[in-house]
């Protein structure tokens, strides 16, 4: 069953929805990257919650005009208009009053959403048409979708993705370095507006699939995931699109296969699973690699200190040091140095003595800055410099 879903064998509608969710995921992941890089990820939360009054008003208007209140195009248009209004309110509050963007976002999202809830209850009491299913915009519903709607969502998601591809270069520039973008003659305010348009498109298209409460997850989690893997903007964009697309595809397929499971939450949880894997396994920022680096550093320090102790004939009490020395064949279990151990200890001692000279010689100030008790001096100085240092060494000392 799950394989059928993943291989797109579950009927025409399910295939359309799965493809639509994947396309939407790519568009959301890539579009969300710009928002994330500008440090305004939570702005999408205000946009998504601000769609609700538009949905309600569009329903009332269409029902009063005698049409079908649940016409998807009408609802999405209403959603887009009221989300744009919400965005205007956020930017007006942040520029014209002294409130911060966080307060403006919170105020707009709660007030618009509250007003939307009022409208939903008005619809119930008006008795115009059946509001059933209107609440599905909160959490998304793909199960009962008619074919024309699924097709429309797929097309809309495709158009949004196209928009991302067209706007990719200028938006990357504006997100990465707004100052440089301004200096090279680009209108950053207008680019910000374009970015908001993109977010708006993602939210409106995603409302029916993921639901307006959870759509922000598709705009935030994939960019954060991608950022863990790379330091380059273009790759963040690519990986984020990939992560979003994968989450949309897997999530929609899983929920189609398991029936009764709502699509939105599954997509979000798949996306989060990708994030957790990345947080653990990413090569430089990942938790595992940080742990491996930490352990390697710890071993190097213990080994070095152990060798210096062997060289000066001090007893070693630290268990980890002893174990590391023994495993490397440098010392016996009772802490006495082996022949190779003696050689390595003498070498470590020589290195330390050389470093002491370098550290106290102002001529080597640049090299001295690289002293950390682990780096060997051979890696820092040229052989010529090294022999000059050796000339200043005190006479030979016997290894006990």
């Amino acid at each position, binding site marked *: 069953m799950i394989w059928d879903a993943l291989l797109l064998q579950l009927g025409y509608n399910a295939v359309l929805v799965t493809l639509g969710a994947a396309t939407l995921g790519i568009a959301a992941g890539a579009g969300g990257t710009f928002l*994330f890089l500008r*440090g305004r*990820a*939570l702005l*999408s*939360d205000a946009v998504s919650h601000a769609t609700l009054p538009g949905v309600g008003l569009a329903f009332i208007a269409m029902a009063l005009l005698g049409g079908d209140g649940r016409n998807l195009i009408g609802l999405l248009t209403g959603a887009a208009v009221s989300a744009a209004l919400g965005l205007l309110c956020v930017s*007006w*509050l942040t520029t*014209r*009053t*002294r*409130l*911060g963007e*966080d*307060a403006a*976002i*919170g*105020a707009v*999202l*709660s*007030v*618009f*959403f*509250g*007003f*939307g*809830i*009022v409208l*939903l*209850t*008005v619809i*119930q*009491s*008006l*008795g115009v048409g059946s509001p059933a299913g209107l*609440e599905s915009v*909160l*959490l998304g519903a793909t199960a009962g979708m008619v074919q024309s709607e699924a097709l429309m969502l797929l097309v809309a998601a495709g158009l949004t993705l196209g928009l991302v591809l067209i706007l990719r270069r200028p938006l990357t520039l504006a997100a990465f370095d707004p100052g440089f973008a301004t200096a090279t003659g680009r209108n950053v305010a207008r680019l910000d507006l374009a970015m908001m348009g993109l977010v708006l498109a993602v939210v409106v298209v995603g409302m029916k699939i993921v639901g307006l*409460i*959870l759509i*922000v*997850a598709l705009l*935030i*989690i994939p960019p*954060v995931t991608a*950022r*863990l893997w790379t330091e380059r903007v273009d790759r963040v964009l690519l990986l984020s699109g990939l992560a979003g697309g994968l989450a949309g595809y897997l999530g929609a397929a899983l929920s189609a296969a398991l029936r*009764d*499971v*709502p699509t*939105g*939450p*599954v997509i*979000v*949880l798949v996306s*989060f699973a990708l*994030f957790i894997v990345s*947080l653990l396994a990413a090569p430089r920022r990942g*938790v595992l690699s*940080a742990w491996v680096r930490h352990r390697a550093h710890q071993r190097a320090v213990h080994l070095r200190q152990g060798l210096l102790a062997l060289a000066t004939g001090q007893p070693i009490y630290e268990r980890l040091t002893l174990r590391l020395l023994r495993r490397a064949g440098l010392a016996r279990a009772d802490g006495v140095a082996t022949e190779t151990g003696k050689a390595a200890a003498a070498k470590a001692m020589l290195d330390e003595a050389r470093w002491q000279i370098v550290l106290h010689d102002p001529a080597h100030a640049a090299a001295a800055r690289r002293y950390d008790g682990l780096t060997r001096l051979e890696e820092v100085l040229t052989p010529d410099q090294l022999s000059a240092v050796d000339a200043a060494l005190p006479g030979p000392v016997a290894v006990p």
Partner: protein
Amino acid sequence: MMGAEFVPLSLPPLLIGTMVAIACALPGNFLLLRRQALIGDAISHVVLPGIVVAFLLAGTVATLPMLLGAGAAALVSVAAIEAIRRLGRIEAGAAMGVVFTTMFAGGVLLLEQSDTSTVHLDVEHALYGNLESLIWLDATGWPSLLDPAALAGLPPELTRMAGTLAVVGLLTWLFWRPLALASFDEGFARTQGIPVRALSLGLVIVAALAAVAAFDAVGSIIVIAMFICPPAAARLMTNRLGVQVAWSVLFAALSAVLGYVLAGYGPGWVGLPASVSAAGMIATISGLILAAAALTGPARR
């Protein structure tokens, strides 16, 4: 409106709504000054999985397990946000977005998968609660306020919110000076020997307490609105913290009362048969107050 049915039907929801609004607005003032206004938003989302898990473990809709579950979820989310921020070196807003959407999604999924059809527990309820249903059946009129037998039948939410408001108010009063200092100038507060980090965590915990206690009675939408809108409007009225907190309490109470009355009786005035959502209306009114303050407030810039 002031007839005999006012005391049993309208007084408890009015009181509960007002107390929720004030209990959320008090910590909201400091969250606003510290630019952490969205913490309230995050907390009220993550409360859902906590409540669902508590329900699954306890098997009933009991108050104490739910409060514990919701409180635990709030703490888990704060820890998770901090962990993601540190481990992945991710900016705070994005880390918050990752955590609260995921936990909310988990809560929704758990709710849909478990059999909660016999009890009143669903996503809509979690979002906008049911303030109108908190009625006082034992009351017959104003004299019931002095009748011990009738008072024993007060909705449990009323006493719980009164307790929460008392705790939040007391803590705000006790920690006023360090809170004010740390919110305006954290560096200076640190030089004065104030434990800034502990204070910051304590503030989040108090906010969580208010959110969790309020959540079950009124849903999360009022909670978010009351954390942010009244303090934000009050901030635009004055430069003095004490005056700001007073304004925020006034705005919160005004939103709750006006919102409840408009939701219950407003539709009747324009000829609609039924009432509309009180929670939504309270949030809407608080937004209108904020809009008015943003347009005319003396300290709006």
